[in-house]
C-alpha cells in the first residue's frame, strides 16, 4: 500500500507528475468533479490544525468524494489509550484514504505500516509536513514557470522550521537552484541539512544575516517566523527582530517579479501592508496546497 510520509517518498518524476495533475485540475475542474465518487477520506487530526484539515477536506469534496473526520485527541479513542496502529486499522475499514496529523514524530510512518489504505502525513510533530512542501513547489513552478536558475531566499527561523528543511531538500533535487539562507546566527540551517541536501549535491548557497542587503538578488523569498523564545537573550532578539519582518519599504529593493511566500499562519513577520503587493504569493500557496492535495489523493487512489 503506497503512502506518503515525507517528500523523499516521491521521486522527481512523481513530483513533476503531481504538479502537472494539479495544473490540469486547475484548468479543468469539471473533469474532476466526480472522480472520487463513493470514495471517503478520513481526516485524523490528533492536534489542532485549521488550514491543513480544511484543505484536505475541501480537496476531497472538490473531487466528488466524502469526508469522515476525527479532530482533537480528547474526543477519540486515542485518549482512551488506543494505539495508532489499532486506530488506523479500524479507520481503514471505513475510509479509502487517510490524512493524519499527530504531535508525535514518526506517527505517520507507524500509521502507514498498519493501515490497509494509503496514509498521507498531514504533519507529524516537528518531523515532516510533505503536503506543505508540495504546495510550495507548485507555487514556485506556477509563479516562475520552473525551477531552473532560481535564487531562493529563505528567511527567519531556518533551524527549527520543518517546512524550510523539507523545501531545501525538495528544491535541491532540481537543477540550477541557488539558495540564500537569511537568519540570525542562532537560527541558521542545521549542518546536517546543509551537508545532506546542499553539500552532497554541490548546490551553491550563502548564509546571510540581513534581509535588506540581499533582497534584490532573490527570485523567491520564503519567510518564516522568528520566535522570541528561540533566542538565547532578549538583547539579541530586540536587535534582530526587525531584520526579519518584511515590509513594503524593504520590498522597494526587491525585483519586480519576486515571489514572496510563507507557510502560514503568520504573526507579524510579514506586514499586512505587503498583502496588496502583487508579489505576495502566500495566499496563492494556500490555494495551490489544496490542488496538490487533490493530485496526491488521486495518485494514491490510482485514479
Amino acid at each position, binding site marked *: 500500500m503506497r503512502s506518503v510520509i515525507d517528500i523523499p517518498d516521491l521521486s522527481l518524476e512523481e513530483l513533476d507528475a503531481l504538479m502537472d495533475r494539479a495544473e490540469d485540475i486547475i484548468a479543468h475542474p469539471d473533469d474532476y468533479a466526480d472522480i472520487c465518487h463513493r470514495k471517503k477520506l478520513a481526516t485524523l487530526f490528533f492536534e489542532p490544525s485549521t488550514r491543513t484539515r480544511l484543505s484536505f477536506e475541501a480537496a476531497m469534496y472538490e473531487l466528488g468524494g466524502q469526508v469522515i473526520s476525527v479532530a482533537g485527541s480528547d474526543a477519540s479513542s486515542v485518549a482512551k489509550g488506543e*494505539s*495508532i*496502529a489499532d486506530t488506523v486499522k479500524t479507520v481503514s475499514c471505513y475510509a479509502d484514504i487517510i490524512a493524519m496529523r*499527530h*504531535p*508525535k*514524530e*514518526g*506517527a505517520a*510512518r*507507524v500509521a502507514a505500516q498498519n493501515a490497509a489504505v494509503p496514509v498521507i502525513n498531514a504533519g*507529524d*510533530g*516537528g*518531523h515532516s509536513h510533505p503536503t506543505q512542501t508540495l504546495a510550495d513547489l507548485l507555487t514556485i513552478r506556477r509563479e516562475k514557470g520552473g525551477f531552473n536558475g532560481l535564487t531562493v531566499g529563505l528567511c527567519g527561523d531556518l533551524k527549527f522550521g520543518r517546512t524550510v528543511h523539507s523545501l531545501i531538500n525538495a528544491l535541491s533535487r532540481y537543477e540550477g537552484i541557488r539558495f540564500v539562507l537569511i537568519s540570525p546566527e542562532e537560527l541558521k540551517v542545521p549542518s*546536517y541539512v546543509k551537508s545532506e541536501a546542499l553539500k552532497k549535491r554541490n548546490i551553491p548557497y550563502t548564509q546571510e544575516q540581513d534581509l535588506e542587503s540581499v533582497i534584490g538578488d532573490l527570485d523567491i523569498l520564503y519567510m518564516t517566523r522568528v520566535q522570541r523564545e528561540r533566542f538565547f537573550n532578549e538583547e539579541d532578539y530586540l536587535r534582530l527582530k526587525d531584520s526579519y519582518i518584511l515590509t513594503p519599504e524593504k520590498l522597494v529593493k526587491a525585483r519586480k517579479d519576486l515571489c514572496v511566500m510563507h507557510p502560514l499562519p503568520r504573526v507579524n513577520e510579514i506586514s499586512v501592508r505587503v498583502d496588496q503587493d502583487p508579489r505576495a504569493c502566500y495566499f496563492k500557496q494556500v490555494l495551490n496546497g489544496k490542488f496538490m492535495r487533490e493530485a496526491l489523493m488521486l495518485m494514491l487512489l490510482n485514479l
Partner: protein
Amino acid sequence: MTVDSIQNGIVIDHIAAGRGMKLYDLLKLNKTETPVAMMMNVTSGKLGRKDMIKIDGEITLNLDVIGYVDPGATVNVIQDGKLKEKRRIEMPERLENVIRCKNPRCISTTEQELSQIFLLTDREQKEYRCLWCETRAAKI
C-alpha cells in the same frame, strides 16, 4: 593479568579500547548464566590497547550489535580448545531493539510494543537514524 583459555565458547577480540562495556551491556551478557570474562585495556599489537570479551559456553550472539558497537571487532568461535571459525563483522543496515530513540517526541516513546528500529544512513560517518522520527543515534 591472565584469563584461562576457553574450551567451547566465543572470544570477541579487537574491540576498540573503551567500547567493551558498551558491547557487554548491549549484548545483555549480564543476563546470561554462562561465565563471561571482560578484559579492558589489554595490550594489542594492532590497536595499541583493546578490549576483549571471553564467553565460556555456547551462546547465541546478535552479531548486529557487535557490528554496531565496533565493526572492527572479530568473533572467534572456539571448539574443543581450538579456533573453529573466525567471523567477519560488518556494520548492520538495520538495528532492531538494540538501542532506544532518545527523542522524547518520537512515536516510539508512546506506541505500544513498537520496535525500536534504526537504519544506517551514512556508512562513512557510522550514522544511524531512528526509522520513525529520523533522529540520529548518539555516537558510541
